[in-house]
């Protein structure tokens, strides 16, 4: 009995928590008069894709989606490529100044990108990179979180494996490639998921770096739907629903790995 109540309570909480998303989707597919109808209707009486059509016709929505995919993939790939060897150097190689350098990286890890938007704007302007994909993914890939996470994981791999490989004549590169990396798939996946989500959701810097209407990411582009006309909630909610759809679909399939990935990236 108590277990049933507990489960019911939890379910109630979960339902309340997703209600805003349900309301968003419901508004997205209602005809405009019904959006403002009193009393409000949770399940639309009439379904329409009119707002969705307007969003896709008036704004380069699919292009924004592509931009988001390209930028997020690039930042994920680049950060993996540079963080893996760096983490290896911190976890497995001995060199002068290693601990000091790591401490500096660590201290910079929590400083958010937002703090640097003004100088980044000047820098990207000088590099002639404003309104290009790299202007967004380069600063994100430079975040030390991946180095930190992977180092932590590498440290837990027994040193004996390295030693054995060295006795067999392996150099550092081959140890990283043949010993460490095959054992680190969960950490690599976790970091990749984290970076992808982080980049996909980045807003402040992307909004400054990308100004041309079709260089925008989904996150920034949604704001443009708001500005152009009076507040048209049908359009705003269709845009939001369309933008949320990929996340929802991916989440339905990979829910466990996403939550596990996010958990692994925490520096408890």
């Amino acid at each position, binding site marked *: 009995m108590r277990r049933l109540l507990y489960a019911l309570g939890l*379910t109630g909480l979960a339902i309340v928590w997703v209600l805003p998303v349900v309301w968003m989707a419901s508004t997205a597919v209602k005809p405009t008069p019904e959006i403002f109808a009193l009393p409000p209707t949770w399940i639309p009486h009439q379904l329409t894709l009119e707002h969705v059509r307007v969003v896709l016709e008036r704004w380069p929505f699919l292009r924004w989606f592509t931009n988001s995919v390209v930028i997020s993939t690039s930042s994920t790939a680049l950060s993996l490529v*540079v963080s893996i060897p760096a983490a290896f150097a911190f976890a497995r190689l001995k060199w002068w100044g290693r601990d000091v350098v790591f401490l500096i990286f660590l201290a910079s890890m929590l400083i958010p990108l*937002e703090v640097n938007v003004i100088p*980044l704007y000047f820098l990207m302007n000088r590099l002639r990179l404003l309104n290009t994909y790299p202007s967004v993914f380069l600063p994100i890939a430079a975040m030390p979180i991946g180095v930190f996470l992977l180092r932590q994981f590498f440290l837990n791999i027994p040193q004996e494996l390295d030693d054995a490989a060295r006795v067999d004549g392996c150099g550092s590169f081959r140890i990283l490639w043949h010993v460490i990396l095959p054992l680190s798939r969960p950490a690599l996946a976790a970091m990749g998921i984290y970076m992808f989500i982080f980049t996909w959701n980045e*807003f402040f810097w992307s909004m400054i770096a990308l100004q041309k209407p079709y260089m925008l990411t989904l996150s920034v582009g949604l704001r443009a739907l708001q500005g152009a006309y009076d507040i048209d909630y049908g359009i705003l*909610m269709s845009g939001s629903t369309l933008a949320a759809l990929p996340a929802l679909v991916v989440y339905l399939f990979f829910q466990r790995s996403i939550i596990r990935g996010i958990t692994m990236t925490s520096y408890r």
Partner: protein
Amino acid sequence: MVVFILPFLALWTLFRLGPVLYGIVISLSHWDPFGSTVFVGGLNYLRLLRDSRFWEALGNTFEFAILVVPLIVSLGLVFALLVHGAQHMRWARVVEAALFFPYLLTVSIVGLVWRWLFDPDFGIVLITAKQLGLRLPVFLNEPRWAIPAIAFATTWWLVGYRMVLFRAALEDIPVELYEAAQIDGARWYTMIFAITLPLLRPAILFAVVLTTISGFTAFGQVLIMTQGGPGRASEVLALYMYRIGFDYLEMGQAAAVGVVLFVVMLALTLLAFRWLGYGTEL
């Protein structure tokens, strides 16, 4: 060694360390969009101190952080305990997934959805409240309620993330401790206060620091939900920095705001490291 570290070091120096130093340089100069840049020393900081709008923004940021940090951390903890307590049920995973989902939405979706929910005329929140006979303030239109409303939306968005991290910390607590307590006849609330909370102390402290940092740099949800309004009642530091820089083109002064934020964030980070004894394990 150098080959391994160099790619990351180059990227980090150019796009993380570089901008911090560059930001200090910009903050010490006057930048003319059509002319040259002149070194002006601490003038921008002086102007910042004299700008009442800066102090308002600072106050608003504090108000936002004071609301959002306890809300996210305590609710995150409660949710984690609730889900953890039901972990033998398969259903708990579905609940956890639902509570976590908002975190995957981009900030502009969160802002737009909550703007719609809180809409003064047709928002479902106010309509439902009226149906229930409650008189709620018109959140986004009232200076006093704009920031609390944004803080609430932010909590909805981020609490799942905190929950998931606390859940992981809960799983690290040895089950034997609870079993021993149970044998001694302890009730669930005693166990929470005598075992769970003390052992979660580092995780909680860290959550406080991280949430404070993200609270201090909140931007997107504010921009979309209220544009800093009504008036400037919800203009937070990041929004102030953006407007000073890109609307008024006072880049020097905007960079100075960035430097101030940087110093605060760095201080918070170092404080957290001290509390948690990071750096000593190195």
